[in-house]
């Protein structure tokens, strides 16, 4: 009897899966599935990415969709777990997604990229770890600079502008922070900058007091901060409390609007390199930032921008082809340069390398009186 009931439960599951796998009835619509971290350790980044996508889809649909087809967007949570990510990406492909959007964390990307590759479907991800694009995957595309591209810019900044010779490095021990640190250390060494203190912190760490005291007591010229936004804010608050009066140098995750909002006065003086920022002197970015704030009642960080651009990359490639062709999206994107004139939603001229890496202009910025102020614009690496 119970054998029966179990069989029935499973059969029901199978039926559900089958119904779900059936192609959508709407012929004039295009289905996009976003697989991203909406719970677990990556929830903050993943939610921003999702919001960016939602805003992009609303914009595109309001302007008539892609080649006249409205976009149906579906979000699948991965719980920041590689096994679940793989399931969700597989499901997205089984359900006939046009391209795969997400995820943002490198681990889940690593667990799912072969699936999209096998299915020959473009996967547009938010990950920045250098290793992702070194595996010869022809279907994986970034939405931001890889850490391998960003770190040399920062190291040069530390050397030439900050004129630091001994620094402390504070990084979050996840794929993002570890990847950034590993990409940064050789660049620093090459420029003769000594890392006097190497501080690993935990993802979700709340108390940075001990780390701040350590840094205060280390005889360094500057502090390189490579943490996620919330942790950056907590660190800046703790550093200010402990009177750490050293220049704080970092990336988008240190200088972003979110961090300034959270750390308040403690964020003043933080500076560094910014890839995607709603405060950048690019009107399209600032306009995006305002509309994002209006819709989600929160400031966008770089993940919001990345999500927005990801959808527009697909739109551009499809319209460029003039037809819907899953494999064609990847072929068209590879090696392309997309300008805002060609596709306003791309916001800034973006060059896509053959391996899926991106190249863009970026900025040097500083936080002054609670505002991110852009000090200089850095050109593309290989224009």
């Amino acid at each position, binding site marked *: 009897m119970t054998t029966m009931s179990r069989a029935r439960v499973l059969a029901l599951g199978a039926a559900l899966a089958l119904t779900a796998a059936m192609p959508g009835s709407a012929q004039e619509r295009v289905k996009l599935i976003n697989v991203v971290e*909406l*719970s677990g*350790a990556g*929830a*903050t980044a*993943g*939610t921003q990415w999702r919001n960016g996508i939602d805003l992009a889809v609303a914009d595109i649909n309001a302007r008539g969709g892609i080649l006249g087809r409205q976009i149906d967007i579906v979000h699948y949570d991965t719980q920041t777990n590689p096994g679940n990510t793989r399931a969700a990406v597989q499901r997205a492909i089984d359900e006939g997604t046009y391209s795969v959007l997400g995820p943002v964390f490198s681990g889940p990307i690593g667990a799912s990229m072969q699936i999209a590759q096998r299915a020959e479907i473009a996967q547009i991800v938010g990950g920045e770890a250098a290793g992702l694009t070194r595996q010869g995957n022809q279907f994986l595309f970034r939405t931001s600079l890889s850490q391998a591209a960003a770190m040399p810019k920062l190291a040069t900044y530390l050397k030439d502008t900050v004129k630091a010779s001994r620094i402390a490095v504070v990084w979050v*021990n996840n794929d993002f922070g570890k990847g950034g640190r590993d990409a940064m250390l050789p660049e620093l060494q090459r420029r003769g900058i000594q890392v006097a203190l190497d*501080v*690993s*912190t*935990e993802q*979700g*760490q*709340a*108390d940075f*007091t*001990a*780390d701040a*005291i*350590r840094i205060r*007591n280390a005889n360094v010229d500057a502090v390189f901060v490579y943490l996620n*936004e*919330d942790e950056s*804010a*907590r660190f800046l*608050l*703790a550093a*200010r*409390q*402990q*009177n750490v009066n050293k220049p704080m140098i970092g990336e988008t995750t240190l200088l972003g609007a*979110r961090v300034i*909002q*959270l750390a*308040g006065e403690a964020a003043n003086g933080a500076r560094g390199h910014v890839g995607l920022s709603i405060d950048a002197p690019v009107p399209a970015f600032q306009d995006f930032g305002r509309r994002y704030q209006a819709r989600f009642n*929160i400031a966008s960080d770089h993940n919001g921008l990345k999500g927005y651009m990801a959808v527009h990359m697909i739109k551009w490639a499809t319209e460029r082809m003039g037809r819907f062709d899953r494999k064609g999206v990847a072929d068209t994107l590879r090696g392309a340069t997309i300008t805002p004139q060609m596709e306003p939603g791309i916001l800034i001229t973006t060059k896509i390398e053959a391996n899926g890496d991106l190249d863009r202009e970026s900025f040097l910025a500083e936080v002054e009186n609670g505002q991110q102020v852009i000090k200089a614009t850095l050109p593309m690496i290989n224009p």
Partner: protein
Amino acid sequence: MAELVAYIVAGLATGAIYALAAIGFTLVWQTSQTINFAQGEYVMLPAILILAAVAFLGLPVWAAAILGAALFVVVFGLGFKLAVVDPMIRHGVLPLAIATMALAIIMKESAKDFFSSEAQTFPSPFPAGAVDVLGVSLSLQHIAIIAVAFVAIGALQWFVTATRTGRQMQATAQNPGVALILGIPVARMVMLTFAINAGLAVLASVLISPIYLAKFSNGDVIGLFAFIAAIVGGFNQVRGALAGGLIVGVVDSLAAAYISSSYRLAVPLVLLVVIILVKPEGLFGRREERRV
């Protein structure tokens, strides 16, 4: 030396928070054998509720704080006892412990989905800045946290030992059966411990959120450390939970300072294992009865 003092003060401040959470933990364990795996979420949520009251109801902060605290104590103190603990307690420790895991998921995901997935600033009742004490710069907020926590724990201790209700509660904790025979309203006393647990969680939440920022995921770390603190101090003593919290906070701070920081988390855990092997009843715990 000055450096060491600064680390210890910082450790004591976080330790005081762990202690508040750990004391509630041991209280509900004593009166009703409930292991609350949602204890970290209990410290996370009140700050979110208060912020939500500000954001959605437009209340001033003080009013939101009162409303949030009251709501929390009613729902997660008394409601938790009635709706979750009562129907399950007779089936033993384990199903209830698992149910609190599910509760933790619900609290965390609700805070994220209905409020925000991002960290939020939380107004501080204490001034920022630092004071110099004998050449050591100490954060005012840390000192305030330690002071408030100690006052709260002192008040609790006074209540338990010096008031009639408190002594009844203590008797209930030590032996509910005997307490019942002595005519103590055991059910009401058990209820009281759940309310006190929720109240301590509110206090901890309000104290740390200005420094840590209010975020749905804050409970993960706090819950783990409160649990460790309770074990280190001995599961059956308020005094032990206080000491356990402070020790774990200081050890963690010193570990971050002097030991490979990527293994920082390992240090309190190794301490835990050593204590289990050397003094299994916890540093301040009573030895529970015996077998060779």
